[in-house]
């Protein structure tokens, strides 16, 4: 089950509270401002700053 659009619409970057978007491979949520990618593991968005990957 892919992550729902409804969920994507209400999630924001936990660091800057700004917008995020799904990356091209569909396995992460990207905050362009913070240059961080929040992973999506087993269809669950992991919105933890410590777990984010630096871009």
């Amino acid at each position, binding site marked *: 089950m892919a992550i729902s659009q409804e969920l994507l619409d209400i999630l924001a970057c936990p*660091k800057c509270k700004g917008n995020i978007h799904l990356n091209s491979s569909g396995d992460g949520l990207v905050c362009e401002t913070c240059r961080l990618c929040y992973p999506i593991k087993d269809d669950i*968005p992991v919105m933890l700053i410590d777990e984010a990957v630096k871009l």
Partner: protein
Amino acid sequence: MKILITGAAGFIGSHLAERLIRDGYDVYGVDKFLDNYPRRWKERNLSTVIQNPKFRFVEADLVSLSLRDLLRDVRYVFHLAAQPGVRASWGDEFERYTHNNILATQRLLEACRETGVQKFVFASSSSVYGDTTDLPMREDGVIGPVSPYGMTKAAGEQLCYLYGKVFGIPVVTLRYFTVYGPRQRPDMGFHIFMRAALKEEALPLYDDGEQTRDFTFISDIIDGTIAAALYPSAGDIFNLGGGCRTTLNNVLAMIEEIAGKKLTFTRLPRQAGDVRHTAAELARARVQLGFRPRVGLLEGLTQEWQWLARELE
């Protein structure tokens, strides 16, 4: 109708999510997957709902999550997320308790100021009463927690009161009394006893076993929690207890009966933060919420035993 459950992967949160989805609600679940017990247990808690299209789940820390967006269109908030455990709350660990129990609660309440939440249900604990001899414990009685955990739950209650009083958020506080049943946390008494019994090991028994608790089965807690969201008022505190105070020795005798074998024990001293007795006065919950605990101890223990036996296979 949308609902937010914090701590949705936990023991009580996952049962609540299951029930609300079954009742037709759309449920958002948030959980931080605290490392108080193995993540795989919490993932298993979610296994019955995670694929359900009416369930949306996010792994996040409430302190940093952008809550206003998440709360958009949410009618009811069930704030169950917490750093649990009385004995572990001393020393350096206290910082985790202030972060996850106090700061997280404040952030969530703050976010609710700007939304149209119809009810904010806060999961508190009988541990706010402390080691009182004034039994049964009444909601309007004096509180005096004897553990840092209990103190952080009392602080959470006060925050709910403040945000209700000052900003009009319709809060309701529930003081849960020793909840048990399938999916009970591995650090909780019955789970520890039953796991030891199933593995033919000695059961660790703190104190003399004559301490008493008002044990509450999970489905009764879920009934009371949903009733608290739906009752036509706000601003109240309710005890949710099983309605029959029992000594630990009595419980152990029942577990022996269920296990069908003699149990052996390792006797250990009473731990700092443990209270000697708990007993819930249920009149207020009965009158205002229609709360009636239905599951007796032997039946509830049997259900937990059967669940754990399956899990350990």
